[in-house]
């Protein structure tokens, strides 16, 4: 029984953090059609910048996070302006190969961020300080208030994102962009402005989730590939571009990992998740929930 509660709580905490970490990847694919393989680098960048400003300049926690989010927005726009847009517009690159060019470009972008972080902040992981202190002893478990807060903050961000996209005038434009770019254009909406909005939202999202992620799991330049891999897996599992699907898939992967850790061994945490991912793709090639 104890184990049951443990898996339930731990799984929820880790899953909600995963969900907030990957949802941006899904958003940017669904709306802009970009598989951003530098997603992990965005998360780590904002986490390390936040940590740096908090621990070296003694900024308050939230102020440090704001700096992290700003950094994330900056690299987001840079990626769009320097790489995505030029490749999109390029006449030299055949349309059928744009996808692989964007993949390669985002990979290189990821390496640049990763190596710069490594250079300036070393490859040692950093942990963003806890937002609150203290421990909750429940069912013989040690759950820190910080984990609970992180989990709630993640869910809150997801709810805000959902509300923004589904309920606000501006947000609906993003949602619409995932269905038809031409439809937006003939509705009199400048698609370029949509992109600016989109990459901004993406930057904010990765910025916030990076700091949350690093408050629990820590972040280092070396964790970039595994974070990108996680985002990629979760999002494909949930159905590319399907935001709700990605969130559900994050919970699925999070719980599978937690169950593996508790019921089999912590050493094998990610293996069952990967195997299940492969099986699902083989039998349901469009992911569990398809597109929308």
């Amino acid at each position: 029984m104890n184990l049951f509660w443990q898996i339930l709580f731990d799984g929820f905490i880790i899953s909600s953090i995963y969900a907030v970490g990957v949802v941006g990847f899904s958003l940017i694919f669904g709306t802009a059609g970009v598989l951003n393989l530098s997603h992990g680098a965005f998360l780590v960048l904002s986490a390390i910048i936040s940590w740096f400003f908090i621990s070296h300049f003694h900024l308050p926690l939230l102020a440090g996070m704001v700096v992290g989010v700003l950094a994330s927005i900056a690299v987001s726009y840079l990626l769009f302006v320097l790489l995505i847009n030029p490749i999109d517009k390029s006449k030299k690159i055949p349309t059928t190969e744009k996808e692989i060019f964007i993949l390669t470009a985002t990979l290189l972008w990821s390496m640049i961020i990763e190596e710069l972080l490594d250079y300036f902040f070393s490859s040692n992981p950093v942990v963003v300080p806890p937002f609150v202190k203290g421990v909750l002893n429940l069912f013989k478990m040690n759950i820190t208030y910080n984990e609970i807060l992180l989990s709630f903050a993640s869910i809150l961000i997801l709810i805000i994102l959902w509300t923004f996209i589904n309920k606000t005038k501006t947000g609906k434009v993003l949602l619409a962009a995932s269905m038809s770019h031409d439809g937006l254009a003939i509705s009199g909406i400048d698609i370029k402005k949509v992109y600016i909005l989109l990459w901004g939202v993406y930057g904010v999202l990765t910025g916030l989730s990076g700091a949350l992620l690093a408050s629990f799991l820590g972040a280092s330049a070396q964790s970039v590939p595994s974070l990108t891999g996680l985002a990629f897996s979760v999002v494909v599992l949930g159905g590319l571009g399907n935001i709700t699907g990605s969130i559900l898939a994050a919970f699925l992967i999070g719980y599978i990992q937690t169950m593996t850790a508790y019921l089999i061994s912590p050493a094998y945490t990610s293996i069952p998740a990967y195997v299940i991912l492969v099986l699902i793709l083989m039998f349901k090639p469009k992911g569990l929930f398809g597109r929308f």
Partner: protein
Amino acid sequence: MLIPKDRSIIIGIVIFILLIFVPYIFSSYVVGVFTIALYFAVFVMSWDLLFGYSGEVNFGSTFQIGIGAYTAAILNINTHIPLALCIVLGAVAAILSGLILVAPALRLKGPYFGLITLVSVLLLEQFVTIFAQYTGGEIGLSVPGIISVSSKINYYMALLFCAFSAMVMLVIARSPIGLILQASAQDPIEAESLGFNITKYKVLAFGISALFSGLSGALLVFYLGTASVSLVVSIAVVLQIIISAIIGGRRTIIGPILGAFFIILLREWLQPLGQLSYVVVSIMGLIVLLFLPDGIISLFLRKN
């Protein structure tokens, strides 16, 4: 008048002839770097054969490379079979691992296939870590067997191997098989309706790509005397392979050799910058990607 197609072969021959003289010009260390670049070039060519001719974006080429390399290394450490046999068995294991990827490649497209191949690498990485007592974990494994201590012998070995691989792959790329592969990549239904059983060709392409990847991986291990995740498995290696292929000039077989040399030598040359060297290499890669989308080789292929 030369048509561009033949030009890339001429470039290949010129590169080969130039490379023959490397040990007479440069220090042993530089020769060592060139040796690694040659093995790496085979990785990139194998990737290019799959991508350029069969249209599959394989994020898992280190799945084959790693399986080939680790099989050979583990056999070498734990058995007494000769080195050459270890390498051959490594290559066989690599082909089998390549065939594992064919099944999804026939069913899945685009990012979905990409993810499967990516996951195959992540899984292999996990297994290497879990079975650290056999594999040396994340950092690596040192093997007793080694091809040679002489940098010259190693270099010429690698050069011959690379030239041989390039030749075989060029022959395949230029052969009816290459043409049919390209047709099935471009429009599978059309290729089928010209009477080709495209499954057969995809299996062959994956097999050949895996064979050379695995061979090269095993040889590299016995050149350096060490097998490690960061050398033959990690995603970073895949990225370097893809980036080299695109920078060199995809779908040309020779272009990837240029790309491999570009990446490895540039990084070596920028070594004084320390970690920043990777940043500079990546930025150069982006510049080539944006302004020379057909790769370095297109500089030489431009029509008069």
